C-alpha cells in the first residue's frame, strides 16, 4: 500500500532553496496527520553538506541520488532519478516547489509514473474521510480557487507555490536515516547541453525574503521609484512592483508581485499607486499589514488593505520620508 510523504528538495549550486524548507514544514504536517513518515529527496552532486539541514527542518529520512550528471538541473536526468525513486517506494503524496525547475520536472515525472499532478497549489489538506489529499489552487488568474483530488492514482502529486507554506523552526542535530539511492545513468540520458549559465545581476533582490515591501504601480512613474527606494531603506525593506509597472519598464521582472510574479507575505506591504488587480492581490494579500495609498477611492486594493489612504502618493510619501528620518535621528 502507498505510504509516506515525499518532498523533492530543490538545490541550486549546492544551496538548498527556501521553498524546499517550506515544503518540509507542510509535508511534515500532512505526514503527521496520516501517521506517515516524511522523506526528503535530494538530487545533485556532492550534496552531503545539505543532508543534516533536511532532517533539522522536519524530514524523518533523506534519500539522495548523487551523480555528476545531476550537478545542474537538466530535465531528463532529474526525471529519470526521481521516477526511479518513486517506482521503488510507492509514496502516498509527493510535493515539489512550483519553481522554474519544479514546474518543468513535476509534469514529466507525473506523466512517466502515470499519475495526476496539481499545479501551483496554495493550500493542502487531508480529507478526514477518504484520506485523499485536497489540493487547492488559484485559477482564472486568481479569480477562483479550485480544489483538486487524485482519487485512484498514487502518488498524489502537487507542485506548491513558493512563499505560501511555512517552514518549521529549525531543530538541531535531529537524527534520521540518510540513504543513498543508485540510479544507472547512461550517456543518452543527457539529451541536452547547457552551453552557458548567466546569473541575474547581483543588484536583483529576493523580494520573497523581505520583511517590508514598498510596492509601486503604474501610477508611481519611473522617477518616483527612487522615492519608494528611499522609503524602503528607511523601513529596512525592499522595493517591489505591480505587473503594470514592470511592463512599463519602471522596475525589473524579479520584483514583480502577483499571479505571474512572486507571492510575498512580508510584515508590511505598502502599496503605492497600485489599483489592485486580482492577479496582484493573489500575490500579496497574505501580508501581515497592508497599507495602501491610491487616488481612486474605489480601487480594489482598498478591499484588502488594513489601512487605506485616498490621496496622492507623490505628496504623501515625501512627507512620510521626512517624518521617518526625524524619528530615526531621534532614536539614534
Amino acid at each position, binding site marked *: 500500500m502507498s505510504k509516506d510523504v515525499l518532498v523533492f528538495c530543490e538545490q541550486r549550486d549546492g544551496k538548498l532553496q527556501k521553498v524546499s524548507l517550506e515544503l518540509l514544514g507542510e509535508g511534515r504536517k500532512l505526514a503527521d496527520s496520516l501517521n506517515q513518515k516524511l522523506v526528503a529527496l535530494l538530487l545533485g552532486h556532492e550534496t552531503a553538506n545539505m543532508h543534516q539541514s533536511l532532517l533539522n527542518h522536519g524530514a524523518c529520512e533523506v534519500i539522495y541520488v548523487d551523480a555528476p550528471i545531476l550537478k545542474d538541473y537538466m*530535465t531528463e536526468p532529474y*526525471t529519470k532519478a526521481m521516477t526511479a525513486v518513486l517506482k521503488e517506494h510507492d509514496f502516498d503524496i509527493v510535493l515539489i516547489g512550483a519553481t*522554474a*525547475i519544479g*514546474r*518543468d520536472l*513535476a*509534469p*514529466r515525472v507525473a*506523466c512517466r509514473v502515470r499519475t495526476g499532478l*496539481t*499545479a*501551483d497549489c496554495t493550500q493542502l489538506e487531508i480529507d478526514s474521510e477518504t484520506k485523499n489529499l485536497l489540493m487547492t*489552487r*488559484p*485559477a*482564472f*488568474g486568481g*479569480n*477562483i480557487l*479550485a*480544489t*483538486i*483530488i487524485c482519487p485512484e492514482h498514487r502518488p498524489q502529486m502537487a507542485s506548491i507555490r513558493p512563499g505560501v507554506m511555512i517552514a518549521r523552526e529549525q531543530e538541531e542535530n535531529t537524527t534520521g536515516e540518510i540513504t543513498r539511492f543508485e540510479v544507472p545513468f547512461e550517456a543518452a540520458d543527457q539529451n*541536452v*547541453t547547457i*552551453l*552557458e*549559465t*548567466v*546569473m*541575474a545581476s547581483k543588484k*536583483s533582490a529576493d523580494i520573497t525574503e523581505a520583511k517590508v515591501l514598498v510596492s509601486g504601480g503604474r501610477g508611481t512613474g519611473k522617477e518616483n521609484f527612487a522615492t519608494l527606494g528611499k522609503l524602503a531603506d528607511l*523601513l529596512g525593506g525592499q522595493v517591489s512592483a505591480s505587473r503594470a509597472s514592470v511592463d512599463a519598464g519602471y522596475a525589473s521582472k*524579479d520584483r514583480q508581485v502577483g499571479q505571474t510574479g512572486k507571492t510575498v507575505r512580508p*510584515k508590511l506591504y505598502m502599496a503605492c499607486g497600485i489599483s489592485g*488587480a486580482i*492577479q496582484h492581490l493573489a500575490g500579496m*494579500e497574505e501580508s501581515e*499589514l*497592508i*497599507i495602501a*495609498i491610491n487616488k481612486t*477611492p474605489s480601487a480594489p486594493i*482598498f*478591499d*484588502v*488593505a*488594513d*489601512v*487605506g*489612504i*485616498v*490621496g*496622492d502618493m507623490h505628496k*504623501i510619501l515625501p*512627507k512620510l520620508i521626512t*517624518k*521617518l528620518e526625524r*524619528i530615526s535621528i531621534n532614536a539614534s
Partner: protein
Amino acid sequence: MKIIVCIKQVPNTNEVKIDPVKGTLIREGVPSIINPDDLSGIEAALQIKDQCKDVHIAVITMGPPQADVALREALAMGCDEAYLVSDRAFAGADTWATSATLAGTIKYLGYDLIITGRQAIDGDTAQVGPQIAEHLGIPNISYAEEIEVGEDHIVVKRQYEDRYQRIQAKLPALITALTELNQPRYMSVGGIVDAYEKKEVKTLTYADLDVFIDPANIGLKGSPTRVKKSFTKAPKGKGVVHQVSEDEAVEIIIEKLKEHYIV
C-alpha cells in the same frame, strides 16, 4: 522542417469579474483570445519560417468548435495549416489526458519541432507542454526567451528565477514559449481573407487519431485528477479607508507602523 504550434483559446481573464452576490464568475461578454504565451509561440514559429527555407507550420488546438476562430487567427498571421482536435470523447480531460491526446495528434501529423506556450491564463498549470514531450519521448526546454534554429538542433535561452541558460537540444524537441520571447505580429488583411477563403481548418476526431491514441488515456476517463469543488475566495476583512489631508495621512501611517513595531 515541420513545426507544430499548440494553442489554446481562453477567456481573457483580465476581464473576468465576480458576481458580488452569487460569488461566481461572470463569463458573459468576456472575449475569447489566443492564450498570450501561445501567441508568442506562433510568432516564434513564423520567425523561423521567415529565416529558414522549407519551413511548414501546422497549428493545432484541442477544444470545442468555437475554437475555430483562434485557428483562423493563426492562419491569418501566416501559419500554413490548422487542425481542430474536437470530439466528445476528449471532453473533461486534465493535463495528463490533454497531453496524451495532443501527443497522439502530433504523431499523426509528423513533426521536427513543437512549440507550446508556457501556460494558459485560465488554468495556469504549465504542465501540458512538458507532458506532450514526455508522451513523445523527446526533450523539452521550458521558459524560452530566445530561440535559434540550426540544421538539426535548436539553442534556447531558458529563463529561471535567478539566471538564464543557453541550452542546446537535437531535434525533434519541444519548447515552451514565454511572452518575453517576442512581440506577436498582427494579422494582415490579406491574411484574414486567405484564412477564411483559401485555407481551411481541418477537424480531427477520435476516429481519425485512434491509431495514435489509447482510448484509456483520453477525456475524463483518462484523467487521474478531478475537480472536487471550485469557489471564490472569502474576501479578507476590509480595513479602514481614510480620506484625510496629507499630514493626517502621514500621522495615521506612522501610528500603524509603531503599533506593528516596524518603527
